[in-house]
């Protein structure tokens, strides 16, 4: 029983931010950053979360690690009820769940040496002597691909990719069980990106890490994840095994994401049709009623504008929140794609004839 217990379990999580306050300090407008989200991460596995900026994916990660407080919902980390922990208990739990940040330039204090940076979590933790800390730092440097003499240098003398290795070393120095990777490669060049992703995967198997991996790039997420959750305006619209979501996707938004990611093959690229979404994602301040995606969806029916679709799970763990595809199970992967392209083309034809 305990062996199959997930490392992180999240139930019905909600998080809103006030944007504007009235004179009395009451929030008059709120951003629904995370909207009734539930998910699980098994020990040693990766859950990828993919979505556009403003989808609430980074906020979800922060809330899960209690870096910011959730409005309501339940978070269980290992056998602890995370939201009930006292400040002191939480501090000691911090060593087991760490973060790798997006921007390796601002994630490192420019005035500190790499040694000071990497040992900071140990110092906060207070569990090791000065000499022990030094040994641990010296041990971890080669594992993330940094040379031993990096200890005395300051971040300014490292490239973006190398800085990200420092950030990774800092995240792993306390031997965590869960690491929240918040867009860890999106500010890096493509060539460095693959390098850092490779490192993350090797470290995962070496240290038995579980990753909560957030990115806006479906290609990267697919590469890294065992399971993928697709987020749109604070809600999970599709969740399932990585391969399933990337190839046998059943949500129109996932189809659009797949179509937007470059094929890296000019002929295939030119041959394929594109689902170009209308306009920008709506603001998370006034999320559309019903299905949040319906104003941009080619398949939307009348019901989509009024009822918010439930995330319906299949027995093999593939969940989709869409009225249309949940009613018509044949719409999956390429068939869904084709029907969306068809609908768009016929729309366009109607528009030109009328």
């Amino acid at each position, binding site marked *: 029983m305990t062996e199959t217990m997930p490392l992180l379990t999240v139930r019905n999580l909600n998080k809103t931010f006030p944007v504007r306050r009235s004179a009395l300090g009451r929030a008059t407008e709120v951003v629904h950053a995370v909207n009734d989200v539930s998910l699980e991460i098994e020990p040693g596995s990766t859950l990828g979360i993919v979505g556009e900026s403003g989808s609430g994916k980074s906020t979800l990660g922060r809330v899960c690690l209690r870096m910011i407080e959730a409005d309501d919902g339940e978070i269980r980390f290992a056998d602890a009820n995370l939201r009930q922990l006292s400040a002191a208990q939480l501090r000691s739990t911090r060593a087991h769940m760490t973060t790798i*940040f997006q921007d390796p330039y601002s994630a490192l204090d420019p005035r500190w*040496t790499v040694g000071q940076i990497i040992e900071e979590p140990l110092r906060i933790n207070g569990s090791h002597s000065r000499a022990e800390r030094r040994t641990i730092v010296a041990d971890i440097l080669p594992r993330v*691909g940094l040379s031993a003499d990096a200890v005395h240098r300051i971040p300014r003398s490292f490239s973006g990719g190398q800085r990200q290795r420092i950030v990774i070393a800092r995240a792993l120095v306390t031997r965590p069980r869960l690491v929240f990777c918040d867009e860890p490669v999106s500010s890096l060049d493509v060539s460095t990106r693959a390098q850092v992703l490779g490192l993350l995967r090797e470290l995962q198997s070496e240290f038995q890490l579980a990753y909560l991996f957030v990115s806006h790039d479906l290609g990267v997420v697919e590469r890294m994840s065992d399971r993928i959750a697709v987020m749109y305006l604070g809600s999970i619209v599709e969740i399932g095994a990585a391969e399933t979501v990337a190839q046998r996707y059943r949500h129109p938004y996932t189809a659009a994401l797949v179509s937007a990611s470059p094929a890296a093959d000019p002929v295939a690229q030119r041959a394929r049709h594109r689902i170009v979404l209308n306009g920008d994602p709506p603001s998370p301040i006034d999320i559309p009623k019903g299905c949040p995606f319906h104003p941009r969806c080619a398949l939307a029916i009348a019901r989509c504008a009024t009822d918010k679709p439930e995330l319906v799970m299949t027995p093999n763990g593939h969940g989709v929140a869409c009225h249309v595809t949940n009613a018509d199970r044949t719409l999956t992967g390429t068939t869904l794609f084709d029907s969306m392209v068809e609908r768009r083309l016929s729309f366009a034809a109607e528009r030109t004839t009328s």
Partner: protein
Amino acid sequence: MTLTYPDAAGPSVLPAAEPSEARRVATLRAFLHRRLATTALVVFLLIVLAALFAPLLGLPAPNVQELAARLQGPSWKHLLGTDELGRDQLARILAATRISLWAACQATLVGVVLGVPLGLAMGLVGGRLDSIISRAFDTLQSIPPLILAIAIVAIVGRSLTPAMIAIGIVFSPTFYRISRAAAATVAGETYIEASRSMGQRTHKIVLTHVLGNVSSALIVQVSITLAFGILAEAALSYLGLGVQPPSASLGSMLTSAANLLNAAPQLVIEPGVVIIVLALCISLVGDALRDVTSGEQVG
């Protein structure tokens, strides 16, 4: 499993990076590289030393009157001449400089103590308390500094210390604003969030991450306030609201000299030049320190 990386921080492609101590040396060197700032620092230190150790220089006591030798020009006996009561001008200037510097330090200290800790805390915390406190400091800033100093003197009587404390109080909003803005900028950096996510407490974040990174902004403000403090002391003492006779301050020396403007202009010019040199040196050093500590544009 061991991980080997052929690409481990390849020293062949990277310039030799500076360790932190070497960086401090480099900062110092960058400062000394600026000839103007270095000269200013040397001049300032010389004046400070002369003022502190004036009694050891074998000059006549600053308040001893020698009525027979009034309003003399420079001579070997009196290097800068004598004033209208026959007192040695150089000895008085050095004594006055000590008082002026001390007064400037008082004002700056008050400004720093009132403004910086609150500013750092509010910049990091933000929210409702922040806006209330910021508003309070704004209000304080709507009273002109010298007017408040004059008011304080009117209330507590003529004395330099309360007046300089008043100057410091009026300057605390600037310190508050600068440290708040700097702390808020630093607070937006991911390394602060990282430190928080590791469980670090706020006051420790201030001590470990924030203070070091706002220091260059504060150094400049300290130098500006010191320079302004010297000018403010001069103004208040000139008006008779600061140092009281027979003690000399750079301002009060000018009060009596102003009446002899035509007869002995050097009595006006000499203390004035000392004020200018002090204020200028302090701000030159401050500017150079900002440039070399803020890092990026060095070299």
